[in-house]
């Protein structure tokens, strides 16, 4: 298949480039800079990098203060801590004043792997999506991460970007457009649409190939931006294909699946299945094993696709 790049690596590189281009970019980390890859920026621009120690609440508040002083702060730690430990600081200090704070969390989802359920954030998309003023982005691959980070830096206001730990296949092309709030169609199809985010987009593309052999034509719509939701692309998919399968490396509660179900339920109800972590916590294991364990493999998407297609017209 295509090249394999971890989204966190793409983030680290892009952040260092941005630091060169814009001296208002500052970066904060909570003792995880080697893992989040902000260490690349830290080496190049030590005076604009602030290690805040293992104190995420203060880190987010400090970032809000830096934003108030005209800086563009990027805040990084693992998703579970950025969203979990510092939730109310994200809400009160960053989102409520519409502060120009970029929260770029790595190690989202179950593919964190061996560290286990304590470190596997399966609720962060739902939690961030519920916060007013917040933009939520979950890139599919390395190149898209680079575009997303640049878009986040250019956007005025709070942004949550969720990245992963492991290398993931590149599914977008260099020319694939990235615009906050806009989805992209990566494969066309007529019988159903996979609406996916993050690394599940690659799984859906693989599933679509398998389905082709069965005579089922699956469209793949990748929503890097979970909020604001691209309603146009969803309506088009619902009307033209008549069935939807959502897929995310996240709980099926409140994340991408929740957002799509809410939107289509109100605007264009069609058979819909949410694929994700089934309202449970993560567990230790290898990333690949966990994707299988939690039902996030192409085979699981194939089965979900058959199910929604069978429900059409009933």
């Amino acid at each position: 298949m295509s090249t394999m790049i971890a989204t966190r690596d793409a983030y680290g590189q892009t952040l260092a480039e941005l630091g060169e281009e814009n001296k208002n970019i500052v970066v904060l980390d909570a003792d995880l800079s080697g893992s989040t890859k902000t260490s690349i920026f830290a080496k190049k621009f030590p005076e604009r990098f602030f290690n805040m120690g293992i104190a995420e609440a203060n880190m987010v508040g400090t970032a809000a203060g830096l934003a108030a002083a005209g800086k563009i702060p990027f805040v990084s730690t693992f998703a579970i801590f950025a969203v979990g430990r510092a939730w109310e600081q994200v809400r009160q200090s960053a989102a409520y004043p519409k502060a120009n704070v970029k929260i770029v969390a790595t190690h989202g989802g179950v593919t964190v792997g061996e560290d286990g359920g304590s470190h596997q954030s399966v609720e962060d998309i739902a939690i961030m999506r519920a916060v007013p003023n917040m933009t939520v982005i979950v890139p599919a691959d390395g190149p898209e991460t680079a575009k997303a980070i640049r878009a986040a830096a250019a956007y005025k206001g709070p942004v949550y970007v969720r990245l992963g730990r492991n290398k993931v296949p590149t599914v977008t092309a260099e020319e694939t457009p990235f615009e906050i709030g806009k989805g992209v169609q990566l494969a066309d199809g007529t019988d159903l649409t996979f609406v996916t985010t993050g690394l599940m987009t690659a799984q859906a593309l693989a599933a679509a190939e398998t389905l082709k052999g069965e005579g089922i034509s699956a469209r793949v719509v990748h929503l890097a931006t979970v909020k604001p939701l691209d309603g146009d692309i969803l309506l088009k998919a619902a009307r033209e294909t008549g069935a939807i399968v959502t897929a995310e490396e996240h709980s099926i509660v409140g994340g991408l699946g929740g957002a799509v179900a809410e939107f289509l339920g109100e605007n264009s109800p069609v058979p819909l299945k949410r694929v994700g972590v089934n309202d449970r916590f993560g567990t230790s294991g290898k990333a690949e094993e966990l994707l299988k364990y939690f039902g996030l493999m192409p085979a699981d998407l194939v089965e979900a696709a058959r199910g929604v297609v069978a429900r059409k017209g009933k």
Partner: protein
Amino acid sequence: MDSEKIAQLQEKARQLRVDIVKTLHKSQSGHTGGSLSAIDMVTALYFQVMKHNPADPAWPGRDRFVLCKGHAAPALYVALAEAGYFPKEDLMTLRRLGSHLQGHPDSKQTPGVEVCTGSLGQGLSMANGMALGLRLDGSSSRVYAMLGDGELQEGQVWEAAMAAGHYKLDNLCALVDVNRLQIDGEVAKVMAVEPVTDKFRAFGWNVIDIDGHDMGAIVAALGQAAGAKGKPTVIVARTVKGKGVSFFENKASYHGVAPSDEELPKAMECLGEQCYL
């Protein structure tokens, strides 16, 4: 500082106490006690110490004030109105639907308010961020952050205290309004925070302990803070909750209660104002 100037500031603080009581009486909702305990320090900041420009609230050269104890918003609002950030009549809209004067400070809505506070424990972190940002820019502007003593129970305050010491933020001055009371009663009984001075000293701060209603001491301490190099300064100000209105003083029950119709004229009398009802 000459005694005449001190007397002028004391008179200003008295007038602002009157404004606080009138504002809260009109809104019939809000925090009386903690606004009255804080106002002498707020007065010294806005009318003596801070560089700021009410005609241009975003003036880059301004000093910044963060009201971490956001429930004392009336103390901030009356000072901003008096300074000319917005018309004084606006005070009478406090906490009403559509008012730019929210129950707790909102930087999106009120000219002169720097950040959103109200959820306790978050303001000092934001003040740290401002101080770091100003230092990066080589600015001589200073950042002032006012906390309550009950607020010190929030763990984030100590994360922020640690970070300010670590980053040697000498352009930052925190003021702790130690009025000794919180909603459920005495701070010492609910969750003891003393010794406050020792705690900040242990985190690498320059510590000044004063009477928070002694205008001369407040102004002197703020001047001393500006001269302290290599570490942030905290002014631990011993105050009286409800200060200036005898029947509000030292009563936890007036933490979040506005003056009634009956109390208003008595409060005005305490503050040396004619009854205006």
